[in-house]
């Protein structure tokens, strides 16, 4: 009736101990990267609590399993009698229901505080005042297949079309499988003041993830998700899309450069000034053109000069597009998605602009 007993438990127990130790060592070495934001510090301290408790529970339970397995193994000289048939103990069941419950309630209190830290934001009616004094910054982040684009709505100028055009950082679209190293866009942000991110998606869901901030948030079509971070370390950090978004999902990389606030605002202001100058130049060029066209019409020599002017138009139209192409409208998600088809190629749009003008 009974099989030949396999009493030798030395191999399994040694194995268990060895692997238990390995798992534990690897676990101790495990950690998240050092955080570079205030919010990340909150996550980091929660992580330490959870990790500490996890190690304790891991050791206690694995230890108990190993202890039972080794201590109560069937011995070589076993007489074949039954061990005591213990069916359970209600007091023990209560104890080991309440103990884990107490632990998770404590954890939940910590987690609750942490969630609040992550979700805290400067109130909407105060942000404008802070922004005006350079004590906060707003960034529009746009994800599309397969590139990230960044815009600073508070650093904008009136372009030749009469629209507001913000300072932008554009990645190169990676529609063909790319050598991405050169085309990774770098988002610049200031150190030590709140930065409010608004996330837009033009086609499918993407996720804005900077591992060292210990935070990510999805960019979802039809929603504008937002969050706030205060960076605490200068440097250049990697970021990457974290939600599968199609073939080149892995190539949706970006960098974040955290700069001293003064440097950042000096840079942003100079970009804004550059934009203003070129917008003025555009307007002047257009006025000059119109005047020339009017003159040409008066001269009645339409043949060649019309050709010339259309060439010039192409140039300025292309420039214009690079300015407006990725403009996002945080207020209206519907519009944001309707941009999706336009953003594919600047050339296409330039053609369209051209044909409209003609």
């Amino acid at each position, binding site marked *: 009736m009974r099989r030949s007993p396999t009493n030798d438990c030395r191999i399994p127990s040694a194995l268990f101990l060895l692997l238990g130790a390995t798992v534990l060592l690897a676990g101790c070495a495990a950690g998240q990267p050092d955080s570079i934001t205030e919010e990340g510090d909150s996550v980091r301290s*929660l992580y330490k609590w959870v990790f500490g408790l996890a190690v304790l529970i891991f050791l206690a339970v694995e230890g108990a399993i190993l202890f039972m397995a080794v201590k*109560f193994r069937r011995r070589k000289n076993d007489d074949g009698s039954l061990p005591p048939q213990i069916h359970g103990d209600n007091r023990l069941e209560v104890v080991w229901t309440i103990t884990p419950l107490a632990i998770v309630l404590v954890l939940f209190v910590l987690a609750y505080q942490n969630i609040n830290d992550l979700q805290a934001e400067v109130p909407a009616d105060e942000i404008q005042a802070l922004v005006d004094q350079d004590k906060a910054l707003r960034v529009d982040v746009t994800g599309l297949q397969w590139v990230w684009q960044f815009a600073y709505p508070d650093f904008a100028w009136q372009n030749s079309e009469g629209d507001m055009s913000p300072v932008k950082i554009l990645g190169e679209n990676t529609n063909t499988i790319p050598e991405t190293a050169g085309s990774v866009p770098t988002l610049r942000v200031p150190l030590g003041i709140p930065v409010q991110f608004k*996330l837009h998606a033009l086609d499918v869901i993407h996720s804005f993830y900077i591992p060292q901030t210990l935070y990510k948030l999805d960019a*979802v079509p039809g929603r504008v998700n937002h969050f706030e971070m205060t960076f605490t370390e200068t440097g250049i950090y990697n970021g990457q899309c974290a*939600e599968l978004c199609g073939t080149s999902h*892995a190539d949706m990389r970006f960098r974040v450069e955290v700069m001293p606030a003064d440097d950042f605002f000096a840079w942003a202001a100079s970009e804004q000034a550059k934009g203003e100058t070129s917008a003025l130049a555009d307007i002047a060029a257009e006025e000059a053109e119109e005047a020339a066209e009017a003159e040409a019409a008066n001269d009645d020599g339409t043949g060649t000069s019309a050709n010339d002017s259309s060439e010039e138009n192409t140039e300025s139209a292309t420039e214009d597009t690079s300015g407006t192409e990725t403009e996002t409208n945080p207020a209206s998600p519907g519009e944001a998605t309707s941009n999706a088809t336009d953003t594919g190629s600047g050339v296409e749009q330039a053609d369209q602009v051209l044909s409209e003008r003609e």
Partner: protein
Amino acid sequence: MTTHTFTPDQSPGVGAVRVTRPYRAVFLDWITTTDHKKIGTMYAIAASVFFLIGGILAGIMRIQLAIPENDFVTRDVFNQSFTMHGTIMVFLFLMPMLAALGNWMVPLQVGAADMAYPKVNALAFWMIPLGGTVLLLSYLMPNGPHAGSWVSYPPLADVSESGTAFLPGHGVDLWIGAIAILGISSTLGSINFIVTVYKMRAPGMTMLRVPIFTWTVIVQSFLAIFSLPVVTAGLAMLWISRNLGGRFFDPSAGGDPILYQHIFWYFGHPEVYILVLPVMGVVSEIIPVFSRKPLFGYKAFIFATLSIAALGTMVWAHHMFTTGAIQVHFFAFTSFLISVPTGVKMFNWTATMYKGKIEFTSAMLFALGFLMMFLIGGITGVFNATGGLDFSLHDTYFVVSHFHYVLVSAALFGLFAGFYYWFPKMSGRMLNETVGKVQFVLLFLGVNFTFLPQMLVGLDGMPRRIPTYTEEEGWGLGNLISSYGYILIALAAILFLLNVLLSMRRGKISGDNPWDAYALEWATSSPPPYYNFDRLPLIRSERPVFDENHPEAVATGDH
């Protein structure tokens, strides 16, 4: 009745219809059978075939990721591989394999002659190869199979506003069709299990004397009935959006992509318990038998199983914390709570060994392996449940590692334990124990070598579902170790298949109850006759066979 060998046509009444054409007769017998045991065996064969396919797909991914900036496969092939790997392992390996054990053991454990609806049972089985074929057919389509991951979020899996699909071709449509077929199959199977246990228990077997494995199958079945039709409906909406302009998930038409995520995860989280609960049942059969004691806290265990199921339907949005559309506090709280009944189970298993006389058979080793690995899966789950930490961990390899610790411990440790334990009952022969121990060592090393490094690169920020990463990122070493670990797991799986194939013919004859086990399936011959039982023992506890074989324990009131 006790000299049956594992040849299918020896069951009285069905096989060997035409002696002159035995192969055809055997073939006809198998494809027309409504015997729960044969259907169980066919489930196991189908699941094994799909396991090999899913495993090869995992191999493709591990080769591609072994070194930075590898170009073993294209980005599209990689995306297709993880999509099909996930789908196949969940719907075509784990669920059918659990159905195999359920089909074999549930009627035997409750003392029934067959399932309540034998023909529905056969139908449910034959939908598995059908669904699998529909899914694999997509490899023959112009743009290949679905590449949008097993969650298939719109808009990626949907069409754009202008009607062009983000993922070209019909891979997604075939995928939707396959999941619908497989979901209906599981729903039919679940109804069958519930009715069988409710209506066909042997005299004396009250609900509180039903073996734990059967209990977990019942609870699993209820979860399946609650959740599978929901995802089938959601996928129907996705199909209508793709093909008939439904636009349920398109914000420009007033739809919402988040809606799909709610529907999917309302199914997706209970699905985890659909996959894990019966394995907990398997382990709860094995640990008491090889400790020579009853399960510690039988009723507490049932209550914990019910609590897990109930809480399991209230935590789905913890998969959606980073969408920004979720009340994080609430779902963090419910997710924390679910660790309490899971903890109760861990303690009950551990306490079962207390003062026992433990024998380290292969089945027991795998059961202990399940406990140890599942604990890691459970603890890492707490990190995600906090909500705050999930904002950093979500969609990274930490999560991949976490749910592989849960599902691989269930799928490999738990199921291997189950097969080493029940193979004698199914075939009348023992599996080779030495091979079992070698296999256990390989698997234990393999799982940790594969998934521990994934946890570390995940903490360091490596996103999941990426076909490549740069050297600068520093994830190369972890991925390389992980890929070597895969080889160990593959070896363990191959050893198991060889063990089964050889032991079927040459294994040691086992006898009816080689483990001196407790539940009703051990009261009949090995393998059981077509009608299952010649006689039933008196059922006065959850261990009728033990009571009969050990009158000394019953006499002292110590049963």
